[in-house]
């Protein structure tokens, strides 16, 4: 079924012209630093990178150091004693507990945060400002005071300790996921959903085929934040969990309070750092693979 229309050559030419960079376009001379400014930019970037990377150097060195005495600049003997000790101290099981806890917190807090964010950003919620403040209250309250109060409540309600940990961590994570998704929904065009509906897609199909893929990068960022809340928590797991749930931060803290097990602490600390970094890399990679992303 072909019909004759006017040529699209002119339009194609415009398209090609649009792909050509023009003065004022992103990344062009006006926005590119030069000379001294460029040197300062590179130097400051290098310093910040060094600032972030430097603390990891002793950790890496310590994790392979079977013997490292003062005043030696580097380990005198390297090996896997630290790894062996970390596993013997329950590091492996604590790692799995932390992973499971963080994934559960992310799996619950992300959709809840997304739904809250969508409702708030659309202005569908009565007393939206008050509810926003309420949502953020877990972050605003002093954690220790809040956790002690909640712990009493959870104990009296006969809530199992592990469930209690998840409940409280989800409450702490929701402000982050809501805030993150709210920014995403502020930029989201509901027109995409409307276009899908007028093309015959049901609300469920629109959600799965259009809405979720379009907000996937924001959901991933939001889930990452919620994961971090669970992954890095110490206080809530300690107080509410009451020892029923031993996670990586708890093992690290107890190991670090002892003397002479620096390499074990280093291995545990590195194992706490690596999963978030891997997740961050995956998020960045998924954005690069996005077929709709302009190249």
């Amino acid at each position: 079924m072909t019909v004759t229309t006017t040529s699209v050559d002119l339009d194609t030419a415009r398209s090609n012209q649009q792909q050509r960079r023009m003065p004022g376009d992103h990344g062009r001379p006006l926005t590119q630093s030069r000379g001294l400014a460029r040197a300062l930019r590179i130097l400051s970037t290098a310093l910040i990178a060094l600032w972030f990377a430097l603390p990891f150097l002793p950790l890496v060195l310590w994790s392979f150091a079977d013997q490292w005495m003062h005043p030696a600049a580097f380990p005198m003997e390297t090996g896997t004693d630290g790894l062996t000790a970390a596993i013997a101290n329950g590091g492996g099981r604590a790692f799995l507990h932390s992973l499971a806890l963080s994934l559960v917190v992310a799996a619950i807090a992300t959709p809840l945060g997304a739904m809250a964010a969508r409702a708030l950003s659309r202005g569908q919620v009565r007393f939206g400002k008050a509810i926003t403040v309420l949502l953020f209250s877990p972050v605003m309250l002093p954690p220790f005071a809040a956790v002690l109060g909640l712990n009493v409540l959870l104990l009296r309600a006969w809530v199992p300790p592990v469930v209690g940990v998840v409940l409280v961590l989800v409450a702490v994570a929701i402000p982050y996921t809501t805030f993150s998704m709210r920014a995403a929904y502020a930029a989201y065009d509901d027109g995409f959903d409307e276009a899908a509906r007028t093309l015959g897609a049901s609300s469920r199909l629109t959600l799965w085929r259009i809405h979720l893929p379009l907000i996937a990068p924001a959901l991933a960022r939001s889930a990452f934040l919620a994961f971090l809340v669970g992954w890095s928590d110490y206080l809530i797991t300690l107080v509410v969990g009451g020892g029923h749930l031993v996670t990586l931060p708890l093992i690290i803290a107890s190991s670090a309070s002892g003397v002479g097990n620096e390499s074990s602490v280093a291995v545990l600390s590195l194992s706490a750092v690596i999963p978030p970094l891997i997740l961050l890399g995956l998020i960045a990679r998924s954005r690069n693979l996005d077929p709709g992303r302009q190249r």
Partner: protein
Amino acid sequence: MTTELMTSAITLTSVTKSYSTTAPAALHGVNLDILPGTSTAIVGPSGSGKSTILRIIAGLEDANGGRVRLSGRDVTALLPEQRGISMVFQRPLLFPHLTVLDNVAFADRAAGVSRAQARKQAREHLEMVQMGTFASRSPQSLSGGQQQRVAVARALAAKPSVLLLDEPFSALDPGLKDEMHAMIASIRAAVNPTILFVTHDRDEASAMAERIVVLENGQLLQHDTVDHVFHQPASLAVARLLGGKNAFAGVIDNGVHHSAIGAVAIDGDVGSGRATLVFRHEAVTSTLRHATSGADAAALATPHADAAACQRLGPRELRGTVTAAVQRGPRRELVVRVGDADVHTEAAPGNLLSVGDPVTVSLPCEALWTVPA
């Protein structure tokens, strides 16, 4: 087939819409019939309810009252996906995570068609809008015009009974708009969908539609052919909304309208009493008048005596002086002072008229129309 025997493609009956209890209603009891296979433009100022009508027909907004029927079927309570319509929006809204081909195949995929079959049909629709070679591209790599072509192909791929267009070409430059109008004309020749579109561009309305609906403040003022809406407006408001600049309040007596520009015979049965004379400035030309041919006058020495005389004697002529001149592309718009009134005209071809020039304004009978005062 007569109009009476045809089932309307779209029927709105007493449709009302309010977005809030405090704001004025967006639509007041709108009644509208659109025949199948026709192209109709909805024009009106911002906030007149143009897009609201489209969104109510599409099911994207619920009407507070009234019924919506598509091909005789009451769809008032149906969801958008159950109505058999497609809509092209002001922004192309191509799904950025899908290729151009999969965007166009989306409607078939939603209907349960296999991926291979949906893509095969999508290629046909892309060819229809001359975008076949862009099938594997991402939407963001296309220009605005190309994206809107794909959006039209995507809407057509849903095989809608009614195609709704909500200012689809308003963001495009004039050259691209002309291409789009030609594309729509080709699509109409090929698949003849019923088209209802919103535009704020009067030229676009007349280029793409054979009928125009004029809306103001949520009320339907006129629904008529393009020629009638422009040259025989139902009211002064319609004349103004469609860019009419000449309106002279007066009285009709024995088929002759008397106003500040003098006595002007009106063709046809126009009754008598108070009425406003309107005519398009594009239909009225001015030519240079030699100074010796007489002074400016609000009326000719021998005004047409009756309506029949108007047709018999040819164009009515007024004398005046140019008080303003504006060049619009190849056309030169003039304001000519005739007696105590300003008449908006265009300079006749070859007349390089300027402010102060004495001119003769020629009023063709067919251009003259009266509306209730």
